[in-house]
C-alpha cells in the first residue's frame, strides 16, 4: 500500500538534473515527485522541571525518553523552571510532550470537565492544555454534570473508559509524598496534609513548643508571588489558601461551610442557592468582609476585565485557575449584607456546590486591577493586572496574614486573630474537630536549593518540616537523623505525560495509545520512585468513581506495556507501530504525513 521510499536527495538530484537539462518533462516529473516526499523520523521533545525542583520529574522524563528511543523515535528532554514550564505548557501551548504533576482531582469527577472538554481547548491554565477534542467525551462530561445517581455514575465510568482509550495524557505514576518533620514543637503531622491549607490547621502545638512553624521548601515561587489567580506561580495553592478563605472547603468528600455559615437550595430548576456568611468577617486590613465582596469575586473571576457584563462584544478574560468552579455559576446576586443568591448552570446540586470553593477577594483591593496589562506603556492585551500582579502584600480574610517576604528566600505569615477560627465564642461551627485554631503564631517559609538541603535543615533543627515533598533517596538521611522523622503520605496528584494534540503524530489517538504502551508504570513506581508510589490508569484512581476494569492488576489493562521489567520488546513495538500505519527505516520510526 505504502509507496516505496523516495529519498529527498533523489528529488533534489532530479531537480538539479532538470535545471541543467532544462527539459520540461523532467521538471514536471520532479514536481509530481515532490508531493511524495518521504516522511522524516518521528521527533518528540519532552519538557519538564530539573532535579532540583522536583525529586522525580526529570528521572521519569528520561526513563520515558529511553523507552521512546528504543521504539525508534528521536526524543529529547528539556528541563526548565517550574514557572517557565507552566508558562510554556499551560499558557502558550508551546510543547509537544510534558511531564508534570496533575492537580488533585479527587474531590469530584466534574474536575475533569475543564481538564478535557473541548470548549476549553484554547484556554490558558489547566483547562484542557492538551487541546483534546472528543465529541463523545464532551457529551459524557455534560451528562455527568447534569445527571445524578446511576445515570451520572454510568456517564463517569464511560468517560473514564474513553479517556483511557484515547489518551489525551498518560498517567505515569502516583508518588507518595515524602516529608521530613520534627516533632519537637508541633504534633499531629501524620494527619496533616501539607499540600492543603487545611493540613496546616490540623497541627497541634507541644506545651513547651516554639510558636514559630518553620517550613522549608524547594519551590521559591511563593516568595515572589501570592496571587491566587496566577497559574504559573501556584503548585498546590496551600499557602495562598491560608491567606484567602473560600465559602466552603471539601472535607472528607463533603463540601463544608467555611466562610459561609449555611447554604440552602431555594429552587431546583433553575438551581438556585442562598448562601449566608458568618458574622463579623473582616479582611486582614480591618475592612469588613460583606456579601458585596463575594459577589464581586465571582464577577471578577468570571471576567477579570469586568467589561463583558456591560459590553457584549468584549471578550471575557476569566481567571485561569478557577474556570471549573466559575463555569458552574450563572449569576450572583447580593440579597443583603450577609447573604448572596447563586443561580447555577444546568448541573446537579453536588457539582454546583463546587462553585463555592474559590477564594474570596476584597473588592477594595481588586477593583483597581481590571485594566489590561501594559508593559512600559505598551498594551500587550490578553491579560489583566488581576492575573499578572504579584499581589504582595496580599489582603485576605484567611487564618494567616502576610508579614513580609524576601523574594527567592523566604516568606513570613502570622496568625490573624480576627479569623472565625480564633474567636473566643467559636462553638459548634460544623467543622470536624481536627481543624482547630492555628497552632502557631508565625509561619516562616524558607527556600533552599534541593530536597537534600531541605532535609538537612530539618535534621539540623533549623526547620520543623519540609513543605514540598522530597525524593525517596533522602529517606535514609531522614532515618539516620535523630531530630527528623519520616512522613510518607499517599499523594493525590499523579505524574502525567501530557500530549499536545495539535502536534503532528500526537493528534492521532492511536499513536498516543501506542506511545502509552511504551510506558511501564510498574517500573516507574518500583525503580524510579523506589517503591514510594503506585501505578494507575485513570486520574480518578483513588475515588469511588473508578471502574473496576481500569484497576491496575499485573499491568495496565487498557495500554499494557509492550515488554517486561522496564525493557521494551523492540520487535513487538515495531509491529504495533506498523499496525497503525508507521514504518521503520534504518531502525527509525517514520510515518505520518509531513
Amino acid at each position, binding site marked *: 500500500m505504502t509507496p516505496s521510499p523516495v529519498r529527498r536527495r533523489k528529488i533534489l538530484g532530479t531537480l538539479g538534473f532538470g535545471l541543467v537539462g532544462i527539459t520540461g518533462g523532467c521538471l514536471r516529473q520532479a514536481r509530481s515527485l515532490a508531493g511524495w516526499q518521504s516522511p522524516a523520523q518521528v521527533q518528540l521533545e519532552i519538557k519538564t522541571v*530539573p*532535579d532540583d525542583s522536583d525529586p522525580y520529574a526529570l528521572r521519569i522524563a528520561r526513563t520515558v525518553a529511553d523507552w521512546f528511543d528504543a521504539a525508534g523515535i528521536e526524543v*529529547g528532554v528539556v528541563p526548565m523552571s517550574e*514557572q517557565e514550564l507552566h508558562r510554556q505548557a499551560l499558557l502558550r501551548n508551546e510543547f509537544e510532550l510534558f511531564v508534570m504533576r496533575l492537580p488533585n482531582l479527587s474531590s469530584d469527577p466534574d474536575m475533569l470537565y475543564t481538564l478535557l472538554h473541548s470548549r476549553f481547548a484554547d484556554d490558558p491554565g489547566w483547562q484542557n492544555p492538551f487541546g483534546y477534542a472528543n465529541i463523545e467525551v464532551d457529551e459524557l462530561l455534560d451528562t455527568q454534570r447534569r445527571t445524578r445517581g446511576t445515570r451520572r455514575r454510568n456517564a463517569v465510568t464511560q468517560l473514564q473508559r474513553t479517556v483511557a482509550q484515547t489518551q489525551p495524557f498518560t498517567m505515569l505514576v502516583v508518588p507518595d509524598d515524602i516529608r521530613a518533620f520534627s516533632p519537637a514543637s508541633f504534633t499531629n503531622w501524620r494527619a496533616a496534609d501539607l499540600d492543603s491549607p487545611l493540613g496546616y490547621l490540623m497541627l497541634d502545638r507541644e506545651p513547651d513548643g516554639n510558636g514559630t512553624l518553620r517550613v522549608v521548601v524547594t519551590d*521559591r515561587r511563593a516568595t515572589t508571588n501570592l496571587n491566587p489567580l496566577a497559574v504559573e506561580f501556584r503548585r498546590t495553592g496551600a499557602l495562598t489558601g491560608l491567606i484567602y478563605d473560600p465559602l466552603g472547603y471539601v472535607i472528607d468528600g463533603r463540601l463544608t461551610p467555611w466562610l459561609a455559615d449555611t447554604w440552602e437550595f431555594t429552587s431546583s430548576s433553575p438551581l438556585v442557592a442562598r448562601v449566608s456568611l458568618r458574622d463579623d468577617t473582616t479582611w486582614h486590613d480591618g475592612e469588613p468582609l460583606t456579601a458585596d465582596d463575594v459577589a464581586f469575586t465571582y464577577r471578577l473571576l468570571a471576567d477579570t476585565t469586568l467589561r463583558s457584563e456591560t459590553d457584549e462584544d468584549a471578550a471575557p478574560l476569566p481567571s485561569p485557575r478557577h474556570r471549573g468552579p466559575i463555569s458552574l455559576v450563572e449569576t450572583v446576586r447580593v440579597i443583603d449584607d450577609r447573604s448572596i443568591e447563586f443561580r447555577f448552570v444546568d448541573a446537579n446540586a453536588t457539582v454546583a456546590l463546587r462553585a463555592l470553593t474559590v477564594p474570596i477577594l476584597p473588592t477594595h483591593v481588586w477593583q483597581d486591577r481590571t485594566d489590561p496589562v501594559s508593559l512600559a506603556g505598551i498594551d500587550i492585551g490578553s491579560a489583566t493586572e488581576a492575573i499578572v500582579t504579584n499581589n504582595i502584600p496580599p489582603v485576605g480574610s484567611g487564618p494567616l496574614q502576610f508579614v513580609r517576604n524576601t523574594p*527567592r528566600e523566604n516568606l513570613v505569615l502570622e496568625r490573624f486573630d480576627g479569623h472565625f477560627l480564633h474567636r473566643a465564642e467559636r462553638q459548634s461551627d460544623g467543622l470536624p474537630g481536627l481543624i482547630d485554631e492555628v497552632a502557631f503564631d508565625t509561619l516562616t517559609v524558607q527556600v*533552599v*536549593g*534541593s530536597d*537534600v538541603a531541605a532535609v538537612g535543615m530539618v535534621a539540623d533543627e533549623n526547620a520543623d518540616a519540609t513543605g514540598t515533598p522530597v525524593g525517596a533517596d533522602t529517606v535514609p538521611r531522614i532515618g539516620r537523623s535523630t531530630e527528623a522523622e519520616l512522613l510518607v503520605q499517599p499523594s493525590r496528584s499523579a505524574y502525567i505525560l501530557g500530549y499536545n494534540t495539535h502536534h503532528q503524530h500526537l493528534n492521532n489517538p492511536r499513536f498516543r495509545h501506542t506511545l502509552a504502551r511504551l510506558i511501564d508504570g510498574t517500573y516507574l513506581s518500583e525503580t524510579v520512585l523506589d517503591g514510594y508510589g503506585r501505578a494507575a490508569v485513570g486520574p480518578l484512581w483513588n475515588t469511588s468513581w473508578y471502574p473496576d476494569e481500569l484497576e491496575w492488576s499485573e499491568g495496565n489493562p487498557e495500554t499494557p506495556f509492550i515488554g517486561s521489567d522496564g525493557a521494551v520488546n523492540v520487535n513487538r513495538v515495531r509491529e504495533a507501530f506498523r499496525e497503525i500505519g508507521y514504518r521503520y527505516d534504518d531502525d527509525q520510526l517514520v510515518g505520518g504525513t509531513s
Partner: protein
Amino acid sequence: MQLFAVIVALHLIGLLLFVPARDVPSALRNARSNIRQVGPTAVLLGGVLIANSFIRNAGVDLAWLIGVNITRGIYAIEGTFVASVQSVATPALTAFFSFIYVFGYAFLLTFPIVIYALIEDGEPLLLTLVAYSLNYGLGLVSYVFFIAYGPRNYMPELVESILFTNWPQVQLLTGLVNVNTNVFPSLHASLAVTVALLAIRFREIHWHWTAVATGLAVLICISTMYLGIHWLTDVVGGILLAVLSVSVASRLVTKSLGTGSVIRLPDVGL
C-alpha cells in the same frame, strides 16, 4: 566563617612559602604603591562583583525571556561524559574534590592578588583584576543568553549531585539556590584558568606559584565535572572565556601603561 578561616590559613602557608622573611619590608612598600595604582581597577572589579550579585537574580528572569535553553544541545554533544568521570568516585576522592572546589578555588582566586601586590611591578596585579572583571562581566552576559542545567540536574539517575548530597550546607554557603541555570560557561573553570594563564605569563616572579596555580586550575576544572555541577562543554567554554579575558585584559593594560597616562577603566563587559 569556616570558608574564611580556611582561606586565611592557606594564604599564610602560601606567603611563608613564597615570600622570604628578609623581603617583607620592601614587599609592604610595594603593596602600598600597588594598591594606590590599581585603586580604580579594584573599584571596577568590586563594582562588577556587586552588580553580579544584584543582576544575577534579575538575569535569571531576563534569561527565561530572551535566552536559549541549550541543555538538550549540550547533552547531544557530549552525552554521558560527566557520568563516566563520576564513575571513579570514592569517598576519599569526593572529599578531596569537594575541598578543591570550595576552598581550593577561593584560595586560587585570592592568593595572586596578595602575592602580586607584594612585588614592585604593578602590571600583574592590574592585569589580574582587569581579567577577573572581564570574566565576571562576560560570564554574566553569557548566562543571560544561554540557559542550561548542569548534569546533576539533567541526568540525576547517572550523575549524583555529590557535593550537595554530602555537604548540603555548601548550597546555602555558595548561594547556589537561585542560579542553577547558570552553568554555561563554568566561571569556576574560567577564573581558575585565568589565574593559571597569568601565573604562566609571570612565571619568573614565582615559578613555584606557577606550578601550584596550574595544578590547582586543572583540578578545579575536573572537580566541577566530578561533582556533577558542570558539563565538559561548560569547562571548555570556561577555558575559552579565560583565554579571551586574559588577552583582552593584556591589550587594555599594555595600552594604558604604554601611554603612561592615568589608567583608564576598560569599558568592556559591562
